[in-house]
């Protein structure tokens, strides 16, 4: 189950499983973000291409508004997935 929690202005926490069955709900949650945001993903346990698409949709939407969207705290395996997808640098995942 995927969850998005607002921690404060410009800060959200994403956790749980972001798979194809959760991506539609995730898109709705992420669509509420309207300012430059850092997403704490330390609780994100799983992500697939459907989840990455939802995150990249948010990244592009915010970029079009002159805002940023960065990700922090991902575990090593999820970091690898973003790296293989060629997106780690864009999302500020070091």
């Amino acid at each position, binding site marked *: 189950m995927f969850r998005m929690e607002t921690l404060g202005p410009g800060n959200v926490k994403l956790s749980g499983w972001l798979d194809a069955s959760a991506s539609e709900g995730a898109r709705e949650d992420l669509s509420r973000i309207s300012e430059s945001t850092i997403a704490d993903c330390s609780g994100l346990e799983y992500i697939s291409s459907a989840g990455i*698409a939802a995150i990249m949709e948010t990244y592009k939407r915010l970029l079009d508004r002159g805002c940023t969207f960065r990700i922090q705290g991902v575990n090593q395996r999820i970091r690898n997935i973003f790296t293989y*997808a*060629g997106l780690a640098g864009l999302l500020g995942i070091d």
Partner: protein
Amino acid sequence: MVERLFPRKVERLGDAFAFVRGFFESNGLPAGQTLDVNLIMEELFVNMVRHARDGTHDIAIGLDWDGSLLTLVMRDFDVGPFNVTTAPGADLQSPLNRRTPGGLGLHLVRRLSDSLRYDYTGRTSTITVTKRLES
């Protein structure tokens, strides 16, 4: 090989994840590596569902472990061919706003697998993936 049938519905992916988790537990495999196997399974499952929208049969998922190599076999019955080994991968080179959408799932499958094989016989698509697990 342990094999189960799963309804071709993306919203039922959780059942397939539970099958993978159960296989890892019963074979004493490292739980940390289920993410890669689940991801390969999900991307192939979703591809099967989306590329044969008129398909009516359940999708078979099989797992085998020989002590060093995990084998995942996925079979889709009474469908047209969709060769995942030759389908285009993701465009990772163009600037983000110019990238062609799609293909990321298969790109990740190829990146995470040690081998990927496709067979189409008697209107059945069979995808066989092997993955060496870290000890």
